[in-house]
Each structure stands twice: as C-alpha cells, then as structure tokens.
C-alpha cells in the first residue's frame, strides 16, 4: 500500500487530506472526532482579534443546490469566522496539538489590517504549538464588509504587506489563503510570494446566491425577508479551483510555490487531480459537512489504491505531474485531427448526440429510420459535445486521425508535425510580423 505521508512546508501529516478552515474545525470536539476518523490535518477555523467575538446570524447560514435525488452539488454559507472567544480556541488548539502530534494543526487567522493586531495574534498562536498559520484573505461575506477577508485578498498590495508582517513576526510556515473573487488569480498569488508566503491555499469560497425564493422574492438562505450573498463551495466549484491551482502552478513567477488545494474535493480522485496540478495536499470541507468525517476513509484507500496501480510510492511522485501539460490555447496543436466515433453496440439509441449536434453544433451525426446513429466525418469537427451528452460512458469516443490520412471535412492531409496558432497563416500577428 502506497505511503500517503505528506510533507507540506515541513509539516508532516499521515495523509494529504486536511480539513479546511470552516465549521468542521471550529472546536476541539469536532477536531478530535476528525483526527479519530483519520484526517491528516486541520486548518482551525479562523480566529479573530482579541475582544468580543463576532456574532453569527440566528437564521439559516447555508444554502445549497442539489441533483434530483438531493445529492448536494454546491453549498454556500454566510457564516463568519469563529464566534467563540479567542482564549477558548487557543486553549483547545494547544490541547489538541499536544494529543495529536502526528497530525497537522494549522491556525487560520483574520484580524484587521494593522501590524499590531497581527503581531498580537501571532504571539498567541505561537504559544499553542500549532504547526503553522493560514491567512484568511478569502471570506467573501460579512468580514469583507469590515475590511477583512476577501477585501484584503482582492488587493495584492495588502496581501503582500500582511504576509510580510506575518513572516517577520512568526517563525513557522505561513500559508496565504486566496479568494477566487478576483479576475486573475496569479496576481494575488504573486503578491503572497512577494510577501514571503511559504504557500498559498485556494480557493476560498465564491461569491454566490444559490437560489431565489420566488414566493418571498428573496435570495436563499433567507433571514426573515432578506438574504445576502454567501460563499459557494462543494463539488460544483471544483473546475474553477482546478484552473486557479493550475494557473499558479504554471505561472513562471509562482511556479514551485507550494499549494494547498481547496475546492470541492469529495473523493480520492478529486485530490489526485488537484495534486497532479501541483497541489502538495488538499483541504476538504463540504464533503465532510455533507457526509461526515468518515469520508476520509474512502479518500485514503482510493488514493492509495490508485497510487499502487500507477506505481507511485509517495505523493511527491505525482505532485505537479500534469502541470507541464497545461498550456495556453495558442500552443495547442492545430494539426491534431480527431473524429467522433459511435460504438453502435454500446449505443442505446437515445438520440441525444443527434439532437445536440443537429441543433447546436455541426450537423455531423446522421440518424437512420431505425435509430442508428453515425458520425459524418466530413462534417465532424471533433468538438466532443456528443461525448459529453451521451448517457453511456465510452459509447462515443474521439478517434485521432493518423498522419497522412485525409480529413474528409477539409480535404487536407493530416500533418505529422506540430503546428499552433502562433504560426498559423490566419493569425493577424503572424502576418503583421511578415
């Protein structure tokens, strides 16, 4: 069985599955249960500055979208940082870390953008024996209105400044948690690096309204007769998170900066994908909140089995393996030609490929009287829509054309050599350069 032990910034954990800073890590009680269930580490729910704690709403904090059978696909929340006294949290962190020395305990922090405030909290965190800190520059609701959370994360200069304060006043790893509520994730990541961050973690939740109650005409979740935007997470956000992780992993300015990936990790596969895109570990919240802490067992066994199958002996073997294969559109090989192929034996004759192609794409699928569906190679641009709408996995495949054969759509010979947009004759900048 593969060794899942992970070393992230020198913080060791028995597996790469950490619980993200969120409700599941708000209290000693929960965190102990998580560690007993097998989680490799936790990022303790965000602590605020000394003084009266924040208060939460007393109505619903969460909203969700579901599949037909109530499978939870996306969750949003309007919960703030911990609403428990700072001292209570610090005491609990200290006790838990002492009892679980082999697990990662990182403390999430969010205090006003003043150096003294940060210095003060850092001193107190140091005393807990926690393994590191995570700067919450991500929360998009509530705290942002008070100049914290994503209000900081949206200004690269602030990120750099606060990160630097922390690095100067704290001797253990500093992870900067990024908000996805920006236009280009590379800028905040670069700022974190410039400030000396040991790692970034992302994504925090995405600003969202999950649904509108059409009877009371207010967004869900509704507090009385009003609602507000909340932070969106869960399986639905994974593609967005994957891209942001990849952007940072392949950006020359941040390449190599350790990443703790967050965003819809629900199974081992999600974790493997994030790690392939450069994440050193993953943080999980929604899956645990949906199914309870035991889900980590599947993540551990699944990742381990996959690593065995692939011959990976440690997580370091495959971290970042997919990064070189993430490129810009302009570098994609325009000489690569594929055609859809329908396996008639597997086909159940629903005709979704036909409807999709005929109505919304390239009219490249023929339908016979007796519902036999076939691809018209002379029309097919290999867009993959038919594959995506087909209910039978593997029934429609994209078959690359061999070099030297003629593409019946263009009547051109498929070239062996790679050629991309940068050299394409239709590219105006190529012509301009001539």
């Amino acid at each position, binding site marked *: 069985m593969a060794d899942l032990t992970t070393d992230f910034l020198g913080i060791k954990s028995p597996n790469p599955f950490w619980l993200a800073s969120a409700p599941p890590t708000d209290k000693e009680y929960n965190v102990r249960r998580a560690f007993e269930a097998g989680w490799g580490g936790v990022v303790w729910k965000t602590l605020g500055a000394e003084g009266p704690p924040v208060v939460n709403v007393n109505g619903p904090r969460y909203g969700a979208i579901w599949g037909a059978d109530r499978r939870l696909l996306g969750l949003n929340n309007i919960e703030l940082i911990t609403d428990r006294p700072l001292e209570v949290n610090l005491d609990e962190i200290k006790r838990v870390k002492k009892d679980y020395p082999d697990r990662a305990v990182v403390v999430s922090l969010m205090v006003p953008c003043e150096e003294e405030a940060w210095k003060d909290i850092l001193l107190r965190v140091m005393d807990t024996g926690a393994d590191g800190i995570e700067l919450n520059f991500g929360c998009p609701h509530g705290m942002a209105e008070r100049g914290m959370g994503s209000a900081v994360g949206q200004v690269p200069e602030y990120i750099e400044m606060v990160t630097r304060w922390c690095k100067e006043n704290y001797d253990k790893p500093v992870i900067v948690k990024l908000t996805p509520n920006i236009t280009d994730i590379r800028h905040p990541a670069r700022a974190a690096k410039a400030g000396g961050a040991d790692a970034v973690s992302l994504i925090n939740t995405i600003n969202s309204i999950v649904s509108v109650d059409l009877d009371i005409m207010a967004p869900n979740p509704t507090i009385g007769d009003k609602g507000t935007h909340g932070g969106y997470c869960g399986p639905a956000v994974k593609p967005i998170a994957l891209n942001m992780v990849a952007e940072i992993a392949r950006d020359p300015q941040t390449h190599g900066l350790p990443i703790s990936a967050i965003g819809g990790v629900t199974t081992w596969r999600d974790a493997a994908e994030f790690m392939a895109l450069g994440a050193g570990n993953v943080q999980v919240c929604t899956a645990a909140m949906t199914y309870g802490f035991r889900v980590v067992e599947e993540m551990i066994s699944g990742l381990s089995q996959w690593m065995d199958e692939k011959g990976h002996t440690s997580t370091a073997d495959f971290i970042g393996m997919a990064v070189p294969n993430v490129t810009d559109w302009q570098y994609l090989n325009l000489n690569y030609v594929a055609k859809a192929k329908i396996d008639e034996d597997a086909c*159940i004759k629903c005709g979704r490929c036909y409807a999709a192609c005929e109505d919304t794409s390239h009219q490249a699928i023929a339908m016979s009287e007796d519902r036999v569906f076939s691809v018209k190679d002379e029309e097919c641009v290999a867009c993959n829509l038919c594959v995506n709408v087909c*209910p039978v996995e593997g029934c429609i495949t994209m078959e690359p054309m061999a070099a030297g054969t003629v593409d019946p759509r263009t009547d051109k010979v498929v070239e062996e050599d790679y050629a991309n947009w940068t050299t394409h004759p239709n590219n105006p900048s190529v012509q301009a350069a001539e």
Partner: protein
Amino acid sequence: MATSHQASGVQAGRLSADQIAENFSDLHAPFDAHEAAVAADRCYFCYDAPCMTACPTDIDIPMFIREIQAGHPEAAARTILNQNILGGMCARVCPTETLCEEVCVRETAEGKPVEIGRLQRYATDTLMAQGVHPFERAESTGKTIAVVGAGPAGLSAAHRLAMLGHDVVIYEPKPKSGGLNEFGIASYKSTDNFAAREVDWLLQIGGITIQHGQGLGSGLTLEGLKAEHDAVFLSIGLAGVNALRAEGEDKDGVRDAVDFIAELRQADDLTALPVGRNVVVIGGGMTAVDAAVQSKLLGAENVTIAYRRGREAMGASRFEQDLAASKGVKLMFNVQPVAVHGNGAAAEIELEYTASEDGKLSGTGETVRVTADQVFKAIGQTLEGAPEGLELEGRKIRVSDSGRTSVDGVWAGGDCASGGEDLTVTAVAEGRDAAMDIHASLTG
C-alpha cells in the same frame, strides 16, 4: 360461519375485511414528489423518443417528464391530457411494459425503464386532486353528436367533440359510465373509485349529457340517431362472450370472467363476494389474469389459469403473468377445456393437452383433471348488437384510420372497431381521432 381458503364451494367471506383491504390496495403505490423527481431525472429526453412512438395516443412523454423535473406536474398533466384525456386511467392500466416502457432506452440499456406510467399518474393525479379541468370549450358550433357507449373510446370522443364546440349526447345502456374502466379491469388498478371520479372530472368540460339505460337495441336505432344528430360515434365495445364449447359448461360455478370482474368492481363489500376454493380460469389475456388474481385476493385457495397455447403466445404480458404468479396463481400452458364435471355444480374441469403445428392447435388426447368449484371463461369477447348495414372486418366494425364506418355520418372506435389492440389507450386514441375527423367533416 368460519370460512377460509379451505372452505369448499363458492363462498363469501374467505378473508377478513382487513386482509381484503390490503389485498385490493393500489398495485403500484403512487409516487410522492421526491420519488417522482428521482424517477423523472432518469429520463434522457430522447430525440424523437421511442416511448412516444410506442404510445397509441402519442403523448409527448419526454416533455411531460421534463415538466415534472422542473416542478410543474400540472403542466405535465396538460401535456398528457392534450393527447389522452383518460391519461389518469391509462397511467394505471396501460400495459406500459409492452408499450412506452418496453422501448425506453433505459430498458435497452439497463433492463430498467423510466417508470413512465407511474410518472404519468403522478402528474394527472396532481392536477385532478386540484379539481382543475385544464380545457375550455370552443364557441358552440350548434352541432350535436351522438356517442353510443360511455367507455374509453366514447368518453374520449365526447370530450374532444365538446371541446371543439359541439354538443354531445352519450347513450349508455349501463347505469354507470366508464365502460371497462368501471366494469372491467382489476380493482387494484383503479382504486378509490377512480374510474367514476375520472368520468366526473372529464365531464367538467361541459356540453356532454349522458343518457343511461339507452343503447342500440334498447330504445335506439342507428337510423334514429342519425336523424337526430349531425354525426354518430359508435363505441359499443364487445358485449358478447365466447363460449367454451366444452361439455358441462352450463353447470353451476361456471361463468364469464367479465361478469365476475364487473360484479367485483361494483361490490360495496368484497368480503360478501363469493369465490370458489379451487378456481380455474380459462384464457390467456388480461381478463384471465384479472379474474385469476382477484380470485386469489378474495381468498381462493387454488387458482389456475389454463391457457391453450404456450407462454409466449399469451395475450397478458410477462409482467401480468409474473404478477399472477407472485400472487400464487398457477399458470398452465398448452391445455384446453374439454369438459366440466360435477353433479349439478362444477367439481372438476378436464383439460386436454394441446400441440401446435404450423400455428394450428390440436388436442393430443391426453387429459388431466383439475379440481374446480368455480370456472371462469376468459377466452375473449365478441361484437354483439352492432346495427345492421355496417360492414364488418373480421368480427368487428370496419373503420378507416380516422374511424369512418361504411355508413356515411357514422364513425366507430374502441374495441368494437377494427384495427388496434383492445386497450384503453387505443380506444382513447381512436375516439379522439374520430372526433377530429367528425369535426373536420362537420366544419370543413
């Protein structure tokens, strides 16, 4: 008197009222909203969907299921009822396993079709529970149309004609409307008096009057109807029952399955309905299964369906066969009745094994006797009481695709008319299509 499975003869009260109630409860419990959402989510919204093609009434099945998915079962009901005004009953009694669900692509893929029938019921029940009738009559055309027979074909034609602005008079010899929906069909498929409730709901369209106790041969003639109305639609069903042509057929305890079912359907108290200890049903269609299963549910100890051909030739679907088997009904194949024995009342039935050569059936000479204090004949119904002058095809009234008979101004549909299977859904389609043709011919 203590009765039970074992009490001999044809007796009432074999089971307690509670057992009877449980036995005759809904065959398929209705979906609740969540079950419907999950079931609906399985639909792939096929292009030119096979289910729709398989439906005799051409219901836009993918669309109504999508409307359920989107949280509007009422809209789904309208989509259904647009094509099939008896969509509520059809959801209950259609042999979906040989129609829409048989060709569902998920049946092909997984052997588990989208549960179209139950979804249709969910939609139509939702709408009907709201007491909503979603159709309105067009402006009056001043025409009146006679419909003979208030079964599925007649009701379907009447509703469509009324909707198009015609006035309709339905003549129904029986004291209640609904035809086989009311008097045929197993009770557990139409619980809570659904057939009658559906008729009441259908009549909300207005413009339809029903004259009970009147039919062809009982006060009416085709000539008279033609003279009084602008068009006539005949939906008189198949009133005759085929004879066994077996010795002893006249003994006590031998009766037509359709009569037994009708009596059962109309009974106020099923514990008072007598049934034999050892029941043999002769036949292989839905009526045979309905009679056999209900005998068992009434408490008969042994119930046997004796069918003269093999399983594959049986008119009842495999689902119906399995339903019968699951209720404890024994299925005998390749046997035909030769005699009913007994001293005045049936005690045994003698069956002869059959062999089929090139589709032609003959007895092998070998016989077997089965204890039977009650024998139900379910070997098919025949046209009876059709007016003179109408051309027949086979043993039914010959009609065109749009339901025209050989007589001008007279249309026919349902079981009495040629073409199509003898199913509620087919009757509804024929009634609807004839109505459209009547409308076209009266207004064109």
